[in-house]
């Protein structure tokens, strides 16, 4: 009676858990919904393998459970002990070996297909560091990229194109994973690893670092943005457009001065000049442990900041982009962020005290191992007035 009650309870708990798990409607990192040929290749492999493994797992678990329940010690005499049944043992060895061999053949085929690089149409360099991803687009004239483009947080790629990521890392091992587009690939310092991505339709595909990399590992996110060829060409042109300084006498112009005094120590804005007319060159190598900080040249053309942890768009604007249909998506994404859509609360909180909203090793007392260099963005002690100016300036970086 007791065991039956226990079994019923176990069944109820398992069933409820399975039901609740299946109720998730907003699951952008669902591995079961591939949106590109590479992810579909993996899905086509794992579905039958999962089914076979599941059936075998249930059979084994049921057999073990039955043996535990049926033959538990109730004080009965120990039965006669026998040793060895060659026919049974050989059968139980050969059958799994055959199953594994069949699975192995298909698995190796998929592995080799996913490792192909000879059909690449667009190359993007991806560099991981604590706790954000940098994307740089090498010169590729066929895509209109005549000078390297550098960005962060969101990887922008053309739809239906075989994109090859060349991944590396500046500090520790990270792992790049956009579940809807392909499997994981480690980004290892000193090495260049490749990962194929291809998206079937325009849209945003979410991902997350999947190799534990320190304090804010869980906040090291990424988004792949797929655009039509025409929209991608517009994005490339926009990224390569020159710097437009804010008009004199505006709040944004004052923000540019604050940026030059504070932020340019780590963050590069291409084309930004100092008062004496010289180019402002950031020096993250002198201030940050990884040696780099996000390039903010076209910040407001992106939808995220702080390692894609926060949205630059308010919820309504963000939903409008994420839920746009294929025909409208490109235009909405390329519109970028304006004053009405800016998620000003999160941006201000970040500027006010970054380590408070994203855990980072920014306490100077704990920086002995890094020769005083920060891991992540420190609290700059900006006044509310400076923050107003900076927000106005950042809005012009588009």
């Amino acid at each position, binding site marked *: 009676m007791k065991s039956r009650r226990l079994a019923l309870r176990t069944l109820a708990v398992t069933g409820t858990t399975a039901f609740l798990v299946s109720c998730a409607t907003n699951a952008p990192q669902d591995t079961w919904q591939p949106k590109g040929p590479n992810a579909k290749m993996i899905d086509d492999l794992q579905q039958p393998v999962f089914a076979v493994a599941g059936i075998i797992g249930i059979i084994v678990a049921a057999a073990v459970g039955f043996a535990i329940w049926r033959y*538990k010690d109730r004080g009965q005499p120990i039965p006669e002990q026998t040793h060895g049944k060659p026919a049974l043992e050989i059968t139980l060895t050969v059958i799994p070996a055959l199953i594994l061999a069949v699975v192995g053949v298909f698995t190796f085929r998929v592995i080799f297909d996913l490792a192909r690089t000879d059909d690449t149409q667009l*190359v993007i360099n991806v*560099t991981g560091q604590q706790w954000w991803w940098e994307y*740089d687009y090498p010169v590729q004239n066929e895509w209109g990229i005549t000078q390297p483009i550098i960005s962060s947080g969101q990887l922008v790629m053309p739809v239906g194109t075989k994109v090859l990521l060349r991944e590396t890392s500046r500090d520790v091992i990270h792992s790049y994973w956009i579940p809807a587009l392909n499997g994981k690939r480690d980004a290892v310092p000193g090495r*260049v690893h490749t990962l194929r991505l291809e998206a079937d339709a325009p849209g945003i595909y979410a991902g997350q670092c999947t190799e534990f990399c320190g304090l804010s590992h869980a906040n090291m996110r990424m988004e792949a943005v797929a655009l039509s060829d025409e929209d991608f060409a517009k994005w490339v042109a926009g990224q390569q457009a020159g710097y437009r300084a804010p008009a004199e006498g505006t709040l944004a112009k004052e923000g540019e001065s604050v940026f030059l005094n504070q932020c340019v120590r780590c963050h*590069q804005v291409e084309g930004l000049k100092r008062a004496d007319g010289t180019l402002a*060159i950031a020096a993250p190598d*002198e201030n940050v442990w990884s040696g780099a900080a996000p*390039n903010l040249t076209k910040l407001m053309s992106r939808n995220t900041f702080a390692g894609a942890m926060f949205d630059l768009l308010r919820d309504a604007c963000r939903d409008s982009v994420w839920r746009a249909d294929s025909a409208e998506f490109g235009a909405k994404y390329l519109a970028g962020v304006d004053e009405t859509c800016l998620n000003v609360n999160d941006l201000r909180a970040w500027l006010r005290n970054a380590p408070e909203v994203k855990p980072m090793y920014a306490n100077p007392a704990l920086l002995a191992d890094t020769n005083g260099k920060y891991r992540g963005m420190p609290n700059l002690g900006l006044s509310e007035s400076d923050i107003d100016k900076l927000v106005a300036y950042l809005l012009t970086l588009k």
Partner: protein
Amino acid sequence: MFKVGSKLFLGLSGFASFNLVAYIIFVERLAIGGVALSMVLAALVGLTAIVLLINEGDSESQPRDNALTGASLWPLMTVVGLMLLVLGLVVAQIYFVLGIVVVLAALAEWLVQAWSESASDDPAHNESARQRLLHPIEFPVIATLGLGVVIFSFSRIMLAISKSAGAVVFIVAATLVLLAGSWFALRPALKGALVSAICVVGAVGIVAGGIAGAGVGLRTDLAEAAEEGHYLHRECGVEKSKYFDKKAMKTLSLRSNVTAIIELRNGELSAVMVGFNEPQQRVTASRANPVTFIFRNFDAAERRMVASLGSAMAAGMAAPEDEGHAEKNETCTQLIPQGAEQALTVKYDKPSVAQDAPLTLTVPGVAGQAIEVLVP
């Protein structure tokens, strides 16, 4: 209901619960350590449940003959290992790793000895069982350690004496080994004790020589080379370097997954990169991150590849031993013959826009050829 196994697991579960509570109260509630301790507790509770559910598998308690249990060195060795482990936490990682190895080895020996002592009522059989299990591991490990000590000692001797004396010592030592081996082979009737004694005397002699050699230190030219950093102070011209670091030709780990392979073929330079179907004339390298290039020389003359580091000096190049090429803002491979290749790791701390001149990869003696490196 509660027997030895269940008591053990219940105790461990209680201990883990105590640790978890103490950690949460005294350290940090949401730290990764708390999650790890929770997992340990969950695993122990699961094991306890299984042990209780199956009634520990066998209710028959086996009487134990304490007279069969002999003295054992392994508890002492385990404690020594634990001490090393704790010492390593404070002093140096090497002691920590050594402690783990000693603890694991001592525990394994201890467990097997404890098992073998209760395998039967016959001590001789029990000892035989232990030997059958452990000798295949013990002998190779002891032999490896012994050989390691002898080889290390011999290397200290060779590094301490002059090059010419080293050749003589090597020839004499090899001849002695050959003669002794031949003698042992031709006289199989020789007493084992005599053979062992000769081997031990030889080994002790080498170890003593090694200790003396370590005391003397590196011979003069090696000490000077290490002090002056010859292998770091690179001469990047057409001329051959005085010092040649052959190890640089053998860095196998650097030859896979590199940023680009720079090939010199028929007097022309090109960059081969994964993902690009055609050879390139421009390479994009990420800023403030070591990037590795492989230089392959397919031309007849010996060539080297030179990487210009630009006017904005890379921070890593400012070390005192690098003063020579810091002045030139460049680094390079060594001269390599036709068909050879060499890796070169470079770090560009400043972007291309910060430089007065383009960052390039060139080959001295090959005019008009350069791969431009773009650092965004």
